[in-house]
């Protein structure tokens, strides 16, 4: 294998007909270490995989497992402390690691394309996006006019509406999804041979993510490059990839065809990651989510034997002593586990908890009437009516910009003032938290989205909890409060900076429950967390709710998560509630066309239903709210011209306690595909109202 030296001077096209003659990406026994204060730490150890041209290979694992390091090593973009200590990375036969600096530059320019998380960060904020793309084209020898034409063609290819106007805008004038499209357009320049996508949709909301994945699916077939997709999100990988490699503590622990790995994982880590994600239509009444306990070891700290052993339910002395070899578990399916055969069915883990019937009859706990909140002149929340029952979990879904967070904050007494009433137990609540009395304040608490910002970085966990207990008149001790949120007592005297995201969110939950609240507003409490951690936090929220009978207003852009936790679901679009009803009914349908698009996005993530492309034109959410008719009319596939764009839609009853704001007759409303519909409710009687 000493051909590397020969090819190091060759670049681009020449490398394709190299000595070894293998097309696509071939990674052999790749190891990467980081220099740290305590010496060398292995971040990636002996990883081998191949990706054929036109194939998409997914690399999954929790944060800290070496995914990003591996992705960077492929393009030799390691930070200065990182170094490849062994193995080879061959693209079309040429060893990338042997290229001279000049050849590497040329190779990157012609053969490699990388799309990072946070697309905004890879665009120059001071340049119009058209000029940025043209710059790349000009560097590749295109003339000025030719480059300009090509830019418009590329922007059109990534399905951006009105390329000419997009090209004139600066990055900050584009939405996150549009920015990511521009970055993908840049990646398409010059037909790369290797496309590395590092968490391309993290931070984008469900519908935008859906569109971006559509696009990636479209372009990968077209360019015929080897595509490596890095993600912590199994659903995303399942949907987009042909084959999957699961990375744990820098080692490949399982590899195989995506559908095999997801249907029948052969490594307990993969199984645990799968069990941590709520599927669309799955409720906490069906199954308790199981989190992966603990955290992956830091680079260099992997134990002898199997690195996953400390977190594995199947681990025995053999696992702790001897690292398992990579063994075949089926056609093209390999796993690094001593006990693959003993692995339980992944989907059956966790038994459903006994739950009290949701939404006890009686007067509601919270009634919102005609609530309107404005930022400047735009009404972000527009004339919203909602009720939350005692002990009920009301899920609120919608894309970003739908006003769901503003609504939630208004309930808590934060954010701009406006008109409308909020009644707690029938008594009106002042709009601003500062005007509410101590009792009312104590009864409504909130859990915020960002675990980093929601805890005071200067206080220890003990101080944070003790202060909450004092001001909320809680009777528990900080120790008990921490224990009730599943926090280790030794964490009490640490500051938030030393906690993981999941631990921070547990502290935030414990704090919210310090004074026995009646209503906890949960604003996307798991969106910023890894899937493995998400499960634990969702489970804790479910447990606390069950134990205390507290009501939740639970907000998420993820329909599967909302469906898992909520008794009732309200769907918000552009400041309006477009649908509201029992969770199963809203998810199963008949439902609002907008809910239907959210369901399609959620299902497509697990490859359970084909995506419906072309339904949501990209960039539509940035259009101004229409003055007349239904706000969804521009994006709605079932639009009735002359009616939907002229008359505001009525609120119709689509079944028991289920209302939809749409012109369509409930009979004609879309439904979730039958095979993916939520389990029919156990108590069929409750929902036996005549199905329209």
């Amino acid at each position, binding site marked *: 294998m000493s051909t590397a030296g020969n090819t190091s001077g060759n670049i681009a096209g020449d490398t394709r007909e190299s000595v070894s003659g293998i097309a696509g990406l071939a990674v052999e026994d790749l190891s990467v270490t*980081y*220099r*740290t*204060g305590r010496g060398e*730490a292995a*971040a990636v150890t002996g990883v081998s995989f191949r990706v054929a041209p036109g194939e998409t290979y997914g690399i999954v694992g929790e*944060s*800290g497992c070496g995914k*990003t390091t591996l992705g960077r090593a492929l393009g030799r973009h390691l*930070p*200065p*402390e*990182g170094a490849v200590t062994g193995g080879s990375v061959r693209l079309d036969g040429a060893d990338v690691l042997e290229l001279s600096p000049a050849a590497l530059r040329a190779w990157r320019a012609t053969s490699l394309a990388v799309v990072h998380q946070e697309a905004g960060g890879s665009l120059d904020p001071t340049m119009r996006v058209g000029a940025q793309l043209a710059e790349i084209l000009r560097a590749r020898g295109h003339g000025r006019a030719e480059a300009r034409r090509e830019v418009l063609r590329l922007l059109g290819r990534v399905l951006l509406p009105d390329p000419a106007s997009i090209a004139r805008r600066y990055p900050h004038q584009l939405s996150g999804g549009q920015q990511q499209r521009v970055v993908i357009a840049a990646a398409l320049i010059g037909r790369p041979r290797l496309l590395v996508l590092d968490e391309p949709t993290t931070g984008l909301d469900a519908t935008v993510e859906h569109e971006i994945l559509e696009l990636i699916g479209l372009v990968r077939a077209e360019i015929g490059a080897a595509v490596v997709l890095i993600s912590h999100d199994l659903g995303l990988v399942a949907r987009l990839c042909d084959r999957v490699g699961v990375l744990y503590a820098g080692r490949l622990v399982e590899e195989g065809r995506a559908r095999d790995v997801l249907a029948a994982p052969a490594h307990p880590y993969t199984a645990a990651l799968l069990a941590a994600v709520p599927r669309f239509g799955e409720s906490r009444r069906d199954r308790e989510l199981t989190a992966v306990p603990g955290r992956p070891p*830091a*680079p*260099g700290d992997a134990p002898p034997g199997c690195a996953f052993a400390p977190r594995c339910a199947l681990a025995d002395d053999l696992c702790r002593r001897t690292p398992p070899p990579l063994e075949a578990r089926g056609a093209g399916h390999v796993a690094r586990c001593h006990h693959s055969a003993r692995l339980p069915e992944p989907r059956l883990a966790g038994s459903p908890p006994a739950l009290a019937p949701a939404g006890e009859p009686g007067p509601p706990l919270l009634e919102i009437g005609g609530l309107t909140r404005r930022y400047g002149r735009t009404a972000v929340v527009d004339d919203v009516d909602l009720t939350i029952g005692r002990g009920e979990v009301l899920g609120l879904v919608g894309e970003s910009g739908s006003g769901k967070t503003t609504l939630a904050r208004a309930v*808590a*007494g*934060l954010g701009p003032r406006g008109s409308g009433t909020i009644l707690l137990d029938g008594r009106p609540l002042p709009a601003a*938290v*500062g005007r509410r009395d*101590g009792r009312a*304040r*104590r009864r*409504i*608490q*909130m859990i*915020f*989205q*960002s675990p980093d*910002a*929601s*805890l*005071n*970085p*200067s*206080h220890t966990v003990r101080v944070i909890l003790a*202060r*909450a207990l004092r*001001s*909320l008149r809680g009777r528990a001790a900080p120790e008990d409060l921490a224990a009730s949120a599943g926090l280790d007592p030794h964490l009490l005297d640490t500051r938030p900076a030393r906690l993981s995201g999941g631990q921070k969110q547990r502290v*935030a939950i414990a*704090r919210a429950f310090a*004074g026995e609240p009646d209503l906890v507003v949960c604003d996307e409490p798991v969106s910023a967390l890894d899937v493995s951690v998400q499960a634990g936090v969702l489970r804790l929220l479910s447990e606390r709710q069950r134990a205390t009978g507290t009501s939740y207003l639970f907000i998420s852009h993820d329909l599967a998560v909302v469906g898992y936790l909520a008794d009732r679901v309200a769907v918000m679009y552009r400041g309006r509630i477009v649908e509201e009803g029992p969770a199963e009914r809203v998810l199963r349908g008949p439902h609002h066309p907008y809910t239907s698009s959210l369901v399609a996005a959620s299902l497509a993530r697990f490859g359970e239903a084909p995506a419906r492309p072309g339904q949501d034109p990209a960039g539509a959410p940035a259009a101004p709210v229409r003055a007349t008719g239904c706000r969804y009319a521009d994006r709605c596939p079932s639009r009735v011209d002359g009616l939907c764009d002229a008359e505001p839609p009525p609120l119709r009853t689509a079944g028991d306690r289920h209302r939809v704001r749409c012109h369509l007759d409930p009979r004609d409303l879309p439904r979730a595909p039958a095979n993916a519909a939520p389990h029919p409710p156990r108590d069929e009687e409750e929902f036996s109202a005549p199905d329209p």
Partner: protein
Amino acid sequence: MSAVALSRARPATRRHRVALACGLAIVLAWAVVAALWPHLAPYDPELQDPAHRFLPPGPGHWLGTDQFGRDTFSRMLAGARPVLLVAPAATALAVVAGTLVGLAAGSRGGLVDEIVMRVLDAVVVFPAIIAAVLFVALAGRSVTVVVLVIAGSFVPIVAKSVRAATLVEREKAYVEAARLRGERALTLREILPNVLPTVLVEATSRFGDAIFAAATLSFLGLGQPPGSPDWGASVSDNRLWLQPAPWTVLAPALAIASLVVGIALAADALRGRWEAS
């Protein structure tokens, strides 16, 4: 990823540690001199010796003598005291007052913020030197007046950066959580600890500026009276003899420079540490 951050921070930390040690050593040395100069100075700084005027640096007088035959080295040591009395006092006063004003304006917001900020703007645009002349003329020349003038001109600077930091913290979820709980003393208990790094950076930067300010005022004859061994006053007194006897000006000038550099070194190192952590 934490490993990456760690190893990247390391060499920088080492550099900071060296800078911090050097800076603190210089500042401490001058502090010791200010406290103990009567025991350290080889001569009485006020002792005139007309027979030995303008002696160049040599074995008898390490840094030579001035126009009255006074020992330059002893005067340089003695000059540390007034500077190190005025500068820390003025800095402390400015930082405490500025922090309180900045916190109040930042956390209150609205009209209070607007009024406070416009008043501070008015203070900033008024030339500090003219203010100093005015105050000395009104209240007479004293250490208190110098301290008040310097502190007063620094308060707006401190208040503005503390306000900016407060505005950032105020929007964070932990502050909103505290508002939801109805915490009392929210600004002091929740926000202040998190703007302390800003306060400390301000304190170190203003300390360096205060030394210059104190020396400047003495140089202009607004601080220490002419003839005193104060560095600023000495530079002023001897500037006529800069060509025939440069040591008489250089000694106090370098003393000022070394102290300011020492503070700057320590301040930069501390700032680097906070940013790294």
